[in-house]
């Protein structure tokens, strides 16, 4: 940074342009909404061609000093279209009506690290979401609030567990084993979205006994820490053509989040909101109902062996009692609560935004839930007229309690014991409070949910400072320096306690387990940008030149201790007598340089962009090698005079970006082991997979070409955007299987070519815009087709999966990257049995404001795709699925449906592949603004009060028989998603909220 300050000094000394203060008259006026005539406060009113400007007050009034002759006033207000009004000499008062910019054509969208362009000129289809769109319905985390709202972004929950666990995939599969998530940039800082598993694998052994924690632990992803209420805007760069300027971390897309900031002018604005909600399971799997002891005997008892199960059906006539075990485990209807408050205000020189969040959301299973407390302080300080300092700080404390779900090999997680537990066995606690053992599984799920604790408290601080120095501001030249430094630190503690009295703990012979983990994560980044703008006196063009540098540092250290055979029942790790320990560190250093030229010409109708980024990283085998990522884009607006069609913008963009290897992939490692006190080192010890690193390991490279058109229709009442793209990912990070006789099982290397092609359509329309009725409609459509074009090695199985017979992904030349293969009677070894990628997705929302009432809903439709419903298989295997006993005729014999399914599997893997087509009502809100007179009667300073009823995921129509078609046993995965193994069940949530502003 030392060099950067030298640069600041240099720039500051070099720029001493002269300015004259105009003398003359004072123009006064009002700015109002063109439709409702409501006064508009905080609008920027400036004198064209000068730096003179002011802000309107809350009543819309302003006064500005202007020279004596004819002048023009330019009025800006975010969310409205810019308006230019001529004020002839002699006119002193003016009323300016602004029209809402519903199509957000004038919103400035990011094009570089310190540059932006108005949306109407943009050469890329950048997805943008506003604060209002994010906060229609209370969401636990930001991604949940984005589902269905952005074309090309496939945002999917891994389970219904509270507190996150959502993955984002933009424009198809872009990596097989590399980082799979987009880059998240919050107020200029690269923030962590890690999903750090808690360590339930130690109990569930989902991936065997070797690791304490694995991806099957159903971790939350850390983006969940953000308070959705703080978000001002989200911009989504979906592919390399837009994200090239972010270089070697950007090929999965970039999500740029800006938080709310203070506003100058007017009185400070307070907002308070209190929501009270209710959550309930949205889909129970059910279980088989047994008629009588005869049915039980024929199902569970083997001739010749003693069997006492029939005695459980001792009602009259040997009928069986019915216990809804699932309802007891996951049938809670918890009351949730969310309180938010914010203050926004400031003067011309100092602006501030302060917000707080207090969110408590218990889960539908005992001892699960999510809570989040957040405090944000954003302060902006203007020093003189040239230096703008922005400080953003956010302190978050969250705690997700996610219970024990997903795959397990010990029969301990809730649904892993529910599937084999028939409805006639009574698992309820005995009068003395102890739980009976479950004779049908190693655990009693009622007992597990009542006694097991799995907590993940997080403390996090994200802070950033941006300095903007406007060194030169003349009509012809502008020179701006933008420096940002920020850091994101969090500590995640994971504490799992399985007390000794649990059935599976007693059976293990080493009763009681505690798993304690601490993660410290620090991301730091520092960047400097110089932006030079040039507009010749003729005004024929605007050229923006920017150069910058970016340094990023990522340090992560996870330490874990697991203890068994506990003394007592207090759950302290030191009470263990048998221990396992682990530490996993990451250290990555990245440096990037970039330069970009943007040229806006031909009356601002043509935009040309050229850019280049060069990156080096410690994650590469050669940390000193630079990798280059170019970009180029052009757009041109055609203007029409017809009433139906005003403007068509044609655009095309090309860009490249990368995806660096993960830390550790560049090393060929020996593992260490303890052989009864003797230290040992070697390949493949303690269950590790011997892996070779390629000697030239480097980032994946994505090349994207995007083209499309944006049309403005019906006098700005509708817009249509159509985009096609073609992505080609080369030098894929691949983990190919080696013939194990080599001693190694896998190699991490670069190679192969993968393609994604797709189409996105966005339609926004305002069918009605009157003072008493406003109706806005949004629809988006996206489809993507991925294909593996070539591989330097034979086709292979990706590292994550359950093997061919249960269905697995298979990376195969000429095939879709998300195909599933399995056994089939029609093929000899294995063949394609399905594809996880859906045919298309549609999001459709309507927002209707009628007088004081407001209705909003968002429907999300996904067509096609399959998930591997292994949960259903497990229910069938233990003769316990709800439809198991339904008789069906196979050839001439009658057999039970469930038994038939189970016998066809795994010879026919398709048996348990189910369509993930769904239609979900993602969001619904109905709100009423209380009359202002009423509000003022309660509080003279009141601005508004709103009462709303809202819901999330209220209904799902789907042929999928499992808990939810959005499911991922392996957590965040671009490939190997959609495996359903006893996930946390999804819930629907209802909210009653009161929002007040004053």
């Amino acid at each position: 940074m030392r060099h950067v300050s030298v640069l600041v000094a240099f720039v500051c000394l070099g720029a001493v342009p002269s300015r004259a203060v105009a003398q003359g008259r004072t123009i006064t006026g009002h700015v109002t909404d063109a439709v409702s005539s409501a006064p508009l406060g905080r609008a920027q009113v400036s004198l064209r061609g000068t730096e003179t400007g002011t802000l309107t007050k809350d009543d819309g009034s302003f006064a500005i000093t202007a020279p004596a002759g004819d002048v023009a006033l330019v009025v800006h207000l975010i969310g409205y279209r810019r308006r230019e009004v001529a004020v002839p000499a002699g006119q002193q008062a003016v009323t300016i009506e602004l029209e809402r910019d519903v199509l957000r054509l004038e919103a400035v969208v990011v094009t570089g690290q310190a540059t932006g362009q108005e949306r109407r000129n943009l050469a890329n289809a950048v997805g943008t979401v506003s604060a209002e769109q994010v906060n229609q319905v209370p969401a636990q985390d930001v991604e949940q609030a984005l589902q269905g709202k952005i074309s090309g972004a496939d945002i999917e929950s891994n389970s219904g567990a509270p507190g996150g666990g959502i993955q984002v995939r933009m424009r198809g599969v872009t990596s097989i084993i590399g980082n799979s998530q987009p880059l998240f940039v919050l107020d200029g800082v690269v923030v962590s979205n890690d999903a750090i598993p808690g360590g339930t694998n130690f109990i569930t052994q989902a991936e065997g006994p070797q690791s304490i924690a694995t991806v099957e632990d159903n971790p939350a992803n850390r983006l969940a820490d953000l308070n959705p209420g703080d978000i001002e805007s989200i911009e989504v760069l979906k592919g390399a053509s837009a994200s090239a300027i972010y270089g070697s971390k950007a090929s999965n897309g970039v999500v740029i989040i800006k938080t709310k900031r203070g506003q100058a002018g007017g009185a400070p604005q307070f907002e308070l909101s209190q929501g009270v909600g209710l959550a309930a399971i949205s889909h129970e799997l059910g279980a088989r109902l047994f008629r009588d002891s005869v049915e039980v005997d024929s199902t569970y008892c083997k001739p010749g062996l003693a069997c006492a199960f029939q005695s459980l059906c001792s009602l009259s006539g040997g009928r069986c009692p019915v216990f809804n075990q699932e309802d007891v485990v996951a049938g809670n209807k918890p009351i949730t609560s969310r309180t938010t408050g914010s203050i926004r205000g400031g003067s011309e020189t100092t602006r501030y935004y302060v917000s707080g969040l207090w969110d408590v959301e218990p889960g539908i299973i005992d001892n699960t839930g999510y809570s989040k407390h957040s405090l944000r302080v954003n302060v902006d300080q203007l020093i003189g007229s040239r230096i703008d300092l922005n400080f953003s700080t956010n302190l978050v404390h969250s705690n997700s309690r996610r219970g024990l779900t997903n795959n397990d090999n010990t029969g301990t997680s809730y649904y892993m014991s529910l599937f084999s537990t028939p409805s006639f066995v009574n698992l309820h606690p005995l009068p003395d409070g102890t739980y009976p053992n479950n004779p049908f599984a190693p655990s009693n799920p009622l007992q597990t949910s009542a006694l097991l604790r799995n907590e993940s408290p997080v403390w996090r601080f994200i802070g950033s400072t941006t300095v903007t120095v406007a060194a030169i501001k003349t009509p012809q030249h502008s020179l701006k320096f933008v420096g940002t430094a920020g850091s994101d630190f969090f500590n995640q503690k994971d504490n799992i306690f399985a007390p000794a009295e649990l059935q599976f703990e007693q059976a293990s012979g080493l009763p009681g387990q505690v798993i304690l983990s601490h993660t410290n994560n620090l991301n730091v980044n520092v960047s400097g940008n110089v932006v030079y703008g040039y507009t010749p006196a003729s005004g024929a063009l605007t050229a923006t030149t920017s150069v910058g540098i970016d340094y990023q540092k990522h340090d992560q250290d996870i330490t874990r201790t697991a203890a068994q055979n506990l003394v007592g029942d207090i759950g302290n790790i030191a009470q263990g007598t048998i221990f396992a320990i682990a530490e996993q560190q990451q250290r990555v250093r990245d440096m990037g340089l970039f330069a970009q030229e943007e040229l806006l010409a031909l009356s601002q109708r043509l935009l040309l962009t050229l850019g280049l980024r060069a990156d080096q990283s410690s994650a590469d085998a050669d940390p000193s090698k630079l990798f280059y990522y170019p970009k180029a884009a052009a757009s041109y607006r055609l203007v029409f005079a017809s009433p139906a069609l005003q403007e068509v913008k044609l655009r095309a963009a090309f860009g490249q970006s990368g995806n660096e290897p993960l830390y550790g992939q560049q090393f060929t490692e020996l593992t260490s082991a303890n052989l009864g006190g003797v230290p040992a080192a070697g390949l493949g010890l303690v269950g590790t997979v011997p892996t070779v690193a390629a000697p030239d390991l480097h980032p994946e490279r994505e090349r994207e070409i995007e083209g499309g058109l944006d049309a403005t229709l019906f006098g700005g009442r509708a817009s249509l955007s159509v985009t096609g793209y073609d992505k080609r990912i080369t030098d894929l990070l691949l983990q190919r299987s080696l013939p194990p006789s080599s001693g190694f099982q896998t190699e991490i290397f670069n190679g192969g070519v993968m393609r994604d092609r797709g189409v996105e359509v966005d339609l926004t329309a305002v069918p009605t815009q009157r003072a008493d009725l406003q109706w806005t409609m949004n629809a988006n459509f996206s489809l993507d087709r991925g294909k593996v074009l070539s591989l330097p090695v034979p086709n292979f199985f990706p590292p994550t999966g359950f093997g061919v017979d249960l269905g697995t992904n298979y990376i195969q030349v000429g095939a879709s990257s998300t195909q599933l293969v399995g056994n089939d009677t029609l093929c000899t070894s294995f063949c394609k049995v399905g594809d996880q990628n859906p045919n298309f997705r549609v999001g459709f929302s309507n927002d209707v404001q009628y007088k004081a009432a407001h209705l909003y809903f968002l429907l999300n439709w996904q067509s096609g795709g399959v998930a591997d419903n292994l949960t259903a298989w497990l229910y069938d295997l233990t003769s316990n699925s709800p439809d198991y006993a339904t008789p069906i005729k196979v050839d001439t014999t009658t057999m039970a449906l469930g038994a038939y399914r189970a016998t066809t599997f795994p010879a026919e893997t398709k048996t348990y592949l189910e369509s993930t087509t769904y239609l979900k009502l993602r969001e619904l809100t109905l709100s009423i603004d209380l009359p202002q007179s009423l509000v003022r009667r309660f509080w003279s300073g009141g601005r508004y009060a709103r009462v709303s009823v809202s819901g999330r995921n209220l209904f799902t129509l789907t042929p999928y028989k499992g808990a939810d078609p959005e499911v991922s046993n392996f957590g965040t995965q671009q490939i190997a998603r959609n495996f359903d193994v006893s996930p946390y069940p999804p819930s629907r949530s209802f909210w009653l909220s009161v929002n007040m502003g004053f």
Partner: protein
Amino acid sequence: MHRPFLSLVTGATLLVLVACKDLMVPDLNNTSLSDLESNPTAAKIATAAQGLLAGTRENVAFYVRDLGIFGREGFDLEPTEPRTVTQLMEGPLDPGSFGGGQWTAPYADIRNAHVLLRALDKDQDMSAPDKEAVRGFAQTIQALDFLEVIVTRDSFGAPIAVDIDPLGPPAPIATRAQVYQHVLDLLDSADTHLRAAGSAFPFRLGVGFAEFSDPASFLAVNRALKARVEVYLDDWPNALLALDSSFMDTTKSLRLGVYHTYSTQPKDEKNPNFDPVHLFANPDLITRAQVQGDGVTLDQRVLDKITASVDTPPPLDGVTSNQQFALYGPDSSITLIRNEELILLRAEIALGQSDLTTAAQYVNFIREHSGKLPRIANLAAQTPDSILTELLYEKRYSLMWEGGHSWIDLRHYNRLLTLSRVATNGHFYTRMPFPTNECTPRSPQPPGCASVNGF
């Protein structure tokens, strides 16, 4: 126009200077293979030699378990992993999952031995006799790893020449006879090295080798392994020769031998076959057990090794049990080779050489000393076939659930069908397929790449 440009250029230059920075970071999590290969020291070699033992232990519990299931000694009943029944007992054996087992771990250890042997050649630190000791140890362990592979693949064969570029084409598949010969060659070569070694190993062997922890005594282990291999090959004279140099001794404990040890210490492994929730004994072992002299008490080996289980799991394809093995706790050892097997091998050799008197003598010795069963009078007078039946009974009960011996022996003498199938659709196997990844790069696909159907 001038000044802004100047500042831009200056700024950009400064930025480039800052950027030319060394970003190298070390591996913070593990030691590296290249370090051992390029900078070997006596200490690193010792750790790697100890790693060989850890490597060969890596899979042994699953070897015991899976081969034990093939030989119907026990069952693995996991409601969440039914393939332990549907594949291991019913079939077919899928090369993509369970069928491909007992392969990757032994081959990783074979690579470990090759890496160690190369490091030894390069090392300047260690004395020549110490190097000979390490070589003898490494080749013995390597032979054991190859043996594990060929026992399970049998007539499919297995690759031998595997010390090649792991990124190149795979080693060719050698025949069963070639692999067994390779195992014998390794054992003999190890024998030569051990004889040239000093009085102690320059590394630590754990408590599992308490009585065989120097090159001279370890030589007896090497010969014991050779005797086992020669018996598998029906080469009776050489088997006897090797056995004579082994530690077989009817005056010593039947448990004298070498063991894989486990512990509950951090980073060590708990015995994976300590799993009372999932692992069960075949009740048939009780049904077919002979009785002691009182006519009531079961074979002592059954009483010692099998107990009633806490739970009787619901049957999975007809497989259930109310019995479990009492052999293993979390820190119990698994046998590598021990005196009792050697005595039984002595009987087997005698039977193979038609020396029925000697065979009967050792069979009766084990009956009396291990099973507490009465001697069978005039056993030597019975037909070789019925002596073999008796010998196989003794081997099944003496070496129960400790190394797949019953499956190997019953396959050897073509008697797998004397076992009950247990599972509804039960099948028996004589060999396992190669794992899918071993086959993928091979064209044409050798036999052993398809699923294996039992009989």
